[in-house]
């Protein structure tokens, strides 16, 4: 334990070498030279992140199954789901854009949610998930590419643009996306990679020599 608390830490933005200190709950340590946030003490990081992630996963399903909104023209109603929009763009020979939307709005958030659950659920039960460095890496690489909050703003902008000419009926997925944006933000805020690594290390050592 003393070994852990006296660990060294190098700032990821300026490489300044510092000593790891114990923080009060809810506080964060920042680099004295460049101001980067080094690490936080998020209380119950694993429990909270897991709770937000599982809730987000369910809402995510709803956001993708239900229509986002529909418009009505002379009694004809057309509704779209996110995947429907992706498919429609693919058929309009905008394959690269269709793929980009599919990856950033659907695949990246889905893989992110699955990876967090895969890592944290066993950890909560005191087990080490197989090939965990791979999943930690996946999370790190995917993090900038999940753009649910940007999509949410895009949905709102399209909504305003359409109300000029059409009667627009909001769908279930619209509310789901709003809730999903909040849940993902909460999960990201409570997730603490440093804690996860420390806990993985501790669990792994405990298993190696029982």
């Amino acid at each position, binding site marked *: 334990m003393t070994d852990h608390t006296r660990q060294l830490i190098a700032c990821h933005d300026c490489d*300044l070498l510092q000593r790891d200190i114990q923080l009060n709950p809810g506080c964060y340590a920042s680099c004295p030279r460049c101001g980067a946030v080094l690490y936080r003490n998020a209380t119950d990081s694993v429990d909270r992140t897991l709770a937000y992630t599982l809730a987000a996963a369910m809402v995510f399903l709803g956001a993708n199954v239900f229509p986002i909104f529909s418009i009505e023209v002379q009694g004809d109603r057309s509704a779209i789901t996110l995947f429907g929009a992706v498919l429609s763009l693919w058929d309009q020979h905008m394959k690269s854009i269709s793929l980009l939307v599919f990856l950033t709005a659907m695949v990246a958030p889905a893989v992110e949610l699955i990876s967090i659950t895969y890592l944290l659920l066993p950890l909560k039960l005191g087990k080490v998930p197989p090939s965990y460095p791979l999943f930690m890496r996946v999370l790190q690489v995917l993090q900038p590419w999940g753009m649910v909050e940007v999509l949410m*703003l895009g949905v709102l902008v399209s909504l305003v643009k*359409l109300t000029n000419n059409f009667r627009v009926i909001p769908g279930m997925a619209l509310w789901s996306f709003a809730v999903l944006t909040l849940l993902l933000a909460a999960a990201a805020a409570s997730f603490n990679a440093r804690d996860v690594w420390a806990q993985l290390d501790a669990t792994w050592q405990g298993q190696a020599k029982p």
Partner: protein
Amino acid sequence: MTAPAPIAASRGLCSCHVCQLVSRRDQRAQVAHCPRCGARLHFRRPGSVQRCWALIIASYILYIPANALVMMETGSLISYRKDTIVSGVVHLWRTGSWMIAVIVFVASVAIPLLKLFSLTLLLISVQRRSTWSPRQRTRLYRLVEAVGRWSMLDIYVVTLLAALVQLGSMATVKAGPAAVAFGAVVVLTMFATMEFDPRLIWDPLQKEEFHD
């Protein structure tokens, strides 16, 4: 400035880019791996400046068709329009959607330009080993990193509108060729931001040079 700041690299210590564990790296060994997660260890991101330049130059070139070509075609019985990014914003402003016009302008015009100019400034200052206000430059980098994703906004709007408004002769919305160029600019500038190593901003304050 009395004593040089304690830098991990100048003590032969290397922070793992995956798990942040600080470990000693043997200078003679060609390849070193993190003892905790097994990732390759580097003192600095290899080829960071060159790759970042390549991505930025490609983005500058693609930025021209992204703005010159048609982003969205909208047609109805009454009117038919072909909008570039800028003319789309102007149209929104004229029709009274000021809020939306401002949001789209910031996301699709201001942010991509801010990213390109900021990264260019950072790369030039790093290559000249400038020691000018490193704290401000690091802040600028963090800002670029944080706002970059919001440029994707127009791509999502075009996708949703083009999918929805397919009601035969009544109205159509089509994504134009600028959408592809614009999407490429967003992706390339995001890669460029990830490729840049902010520690290079601080290295000129040290006497030694660090590689790899």
